């Protein structure tokens, strides 16, 4: 998987309430949730974000609530992948389960400025800043998580297991 898009930068400890406030959780329609993506971190984000753009955040991105609506709304808003220094653990797991590519790379986060054009090679864990010409490695994805991705997400993985 390869993506290219513009970077939108966020600070540390962006919680899932900021990603998708609970006041919108009376629906789980991805398109409707996307209209409020990142609203309490940057109210203008849903209007600014373009298909393929990349969220670049500091440590502990997606901490807090278990709402799967958080990675769902990011994906539905057109964001191609997220790069952060670290992730809230439920958000990390949920992103794999629903197929939102997320990468961990403190160096890349420090080496990217908002608006930079970023190219990501998810399979090889390479993040290339087209604007500055610098490239970074992301932390390797654990083999079991790779197996989940290869199976097409957790639901397909479980479906396969239950048939056996």
């Amino acid at each position, binding site marked *: 998987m390869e993506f290219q898009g513009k970077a939108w930068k966020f600070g540390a400890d962006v919680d899932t*309430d900021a990603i998708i406030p609970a006041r919108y*959780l009376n629906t*789980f329609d991805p398109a409707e949730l996307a209209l409020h993506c990142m609203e*309490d971190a940057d109210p203008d984000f849903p209007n600014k974000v373009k298909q393929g753009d990349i969220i670049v955040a500091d440590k502990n991105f997606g901490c807090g609530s278990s709402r799967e*609506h958080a990675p769902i709304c990011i994906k539905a808003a057109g964001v191609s992948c997220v790069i952060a220094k670290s992730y809230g653990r439920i958000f990390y797991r*949920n992103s794999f*389960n629903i197929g939102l590519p997320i990468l961990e790379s403190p160096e890349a986060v420090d080496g990217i400025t908002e608006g930079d054009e970023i190219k990501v090679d998810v399979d090889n864990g390479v993040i290339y800043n087209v604007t500055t010409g610098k490239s970074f490695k992301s932390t390797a994805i654990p083999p079991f998580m790779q197996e989940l991705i290869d199976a097409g997400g957790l639901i397909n993985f479980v479906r396969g297991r*239950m048939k056996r």
Partner: protein
Amino acid sequence: MGMTITEKILAAHAGKDRVEPGELINSKVDIVLGNDVTAPVAIKEFEKIGVPDVFDKEKVVLIPDHFTPNKDIKSAEQAKMLREFAKKQGLTNYFEVGRMGIEHCLLPEQGIVLPGDVIIGADSHTCTYGALGAFSTGSGSTDMAAAMAAGEAWFKVPESIKFVFNGEELPEWVGGKDLILYAIGDIGVDGALYEAMEFTGPAIRNLSMDGRFTMANMAVEAGAKSGIIAPDQTTVDYVEARAKRPYKIYNSDDDAKYEKVIEYDVADIEPQVAFPHLPENTKPISEVGTVEIDQAVIGSCTNGRMEDLRIAAKVLQGHEVHPDVRLVIFPGTQTIYKQAMKEGLFDIFVDAGAAVSTPTCGPCLGGHMGILAKGERAIATTNRNFVGRMGHPESEVYLSNPAVAAASAILGRIVSPQEVK
């Protein structure tokens, strides 16, 4: 090398003699939980797996508690999905409005979750049940769906951090909430990321079950996968009257390996207040300064139990809520509601000028029943003070124990109960 309580429970559920931190395991689950926000997504995903029935109709628990009693038409549709799925599947543990409670107060009270269990719930505060000596963790809806079908979940065995709370007796007006806020203030909101927080020490042994639930409840606010307290006589006394199936008590070995050990002396701990917008922004009550409030909220899965209501009543008795403050009180379950009524606590609350609500998660997550307007400020016994958590993105939430919240409601600013004369 010995094992921690967490490692022992996970090994037993993975059919292994031992497990090591970092190891990926497939574990049997004893209980799978969802609510009216997370279960609709899980039900939709479950249907994609293509199995007709859940793995065990007594082990899948659905609680409509977040936006109920239904706050609007869309919420009513989500609650209806739960109701219809529960009926179709013949689930024995579906609790309707009027018979329900806030999930993390209700499940232990009903004896649904027990010591030694592995529990996953599509709600981050599922870590609450660790107070019983169970491995219990929050997950997303897709994990819930997979577990509903297979009765299993995959986990990375977490490293454990041991928190030792020394000192026999807690200072006046200090409770479980203050111990956990103090720890989060110390290690930060990602201080236990991916890890298990194990709470031990004399002060924990002297803590009631209600106080222990409060502590385990907020483990996730330090980024932890789980919080756990090894069972003792207090746990057994609580569980014995409620359990309808066998349970098993595990303890950490003396030579178990911890990522680190952190020791506190409870004599140093005052009532804590977490300032906006992270639970780690804690200050002792003596250093809060002048912070005026518009609303006080007492309740939630963190502090909506009997002991919490009794403490609030003790502070409020014979006083009136400040004219500029709304005080809303949310008992955690119908059983707690009835007990509080029987003990005359509602007389004290209503005479003081407080609103008493049916059990719901409502205000804690900015759902309904106590939303803040722009610029408003609340003190709450809940667990999160994130931006916009209780309403407008420019409102503020301060976290505290029930005694501080009640005292603040009376004086209109955040104060120690000692200031209420």
